[in-house]
């Protein structure tokens, strides 16, 4: 079952743990070499001033980029080593926020990624990060 505003084929990727506790988060269809993910901003995601909390946006960046590190490397498990997030603009209640993730480079043990998170028509966050491929 998908949320209103998301395509019918959106795949819920938040089955357990912190992903489920803070989600749902979804994977959308790929756009060429861009991996796409989305969530709908709910009441529980907000901060006191009525915009989406930075911690939730960083969580979504981590989830979408971590999933992409596994998709491009084929590894079962990857760990976040470093993440850099710029809070470009606010997300609002009810927004469908999409993360578009690109792999910049993959080595034997590491994946370098960048992501852009946006609400319709405006960028919310840009992020770059480094993931370790777990043996």
């Amino acid at each position, binding site marked *: 079952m998908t949320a209103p505003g998301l395509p019918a084929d959106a795949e819920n990727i938040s089955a357990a743990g912190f992903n489920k*506790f803070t989600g749902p988060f979804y994977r959308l269809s790929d756009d060429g070499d861009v991996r796409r993910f989305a969530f709908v901003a709910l009441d529980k995601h907000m*901060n006191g001033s009525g915009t989406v909390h*930075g*911690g939730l946006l*960083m969580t979504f960046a981590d989830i979408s980029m971590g999933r992409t590190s596994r998709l491009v490397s084929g590894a079962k498990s990857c760990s976040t080593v*470093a*993440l850099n997030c*710029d809070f470009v603009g606010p997300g609002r209640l009810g927004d469908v926020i999409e993360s578009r993730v690109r792999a910049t480079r993959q080595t034997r043990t590491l994946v370098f990624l960048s992501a852009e998170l946006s609400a319709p028509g405006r960028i919310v966050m840009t992020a770059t990060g480094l993931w370790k491929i777990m043996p």
Partner: protein
Amino acid sequence: MTAPQGFSEIRLIDPFEIHVGPAYGAGEIPQRRYAFRVAAHHCNLRGVAHGGMLMTFADLALGQAVWDVTDKAPSVTLNMQTHFIAPAREGDLVEVRPELTRRTRSMVFMRGDFTVDGEIVMTAQSVWKLLGQD
């Protein structure tokens, strides 16, 4: 959940922080420390604290510290850089004593070493914009 020894629960306002909380504080400004205890719902499938939870706590704790040094001036996070040094596990108490790097008229630079039993699990630094200050 009872507060860890020496800490008391801090009053959270943001719905997302209330959702993932509680969080704790101890000591007086500017030596004030913050903490949270890793619960099962903070973890991923590998049984370690999710990076998203650690970053959310970093934003919460460094944001409290920005409040501490600005007498609760309204502010927003502009940027956060996080390094994940070691895993934190269910039951661990994650602690930080935020360090003010610099305050200008319109911005605050804050950083912290996040530790479990004295060992660093994460470092984070963030830049904050003080609203209404050009």
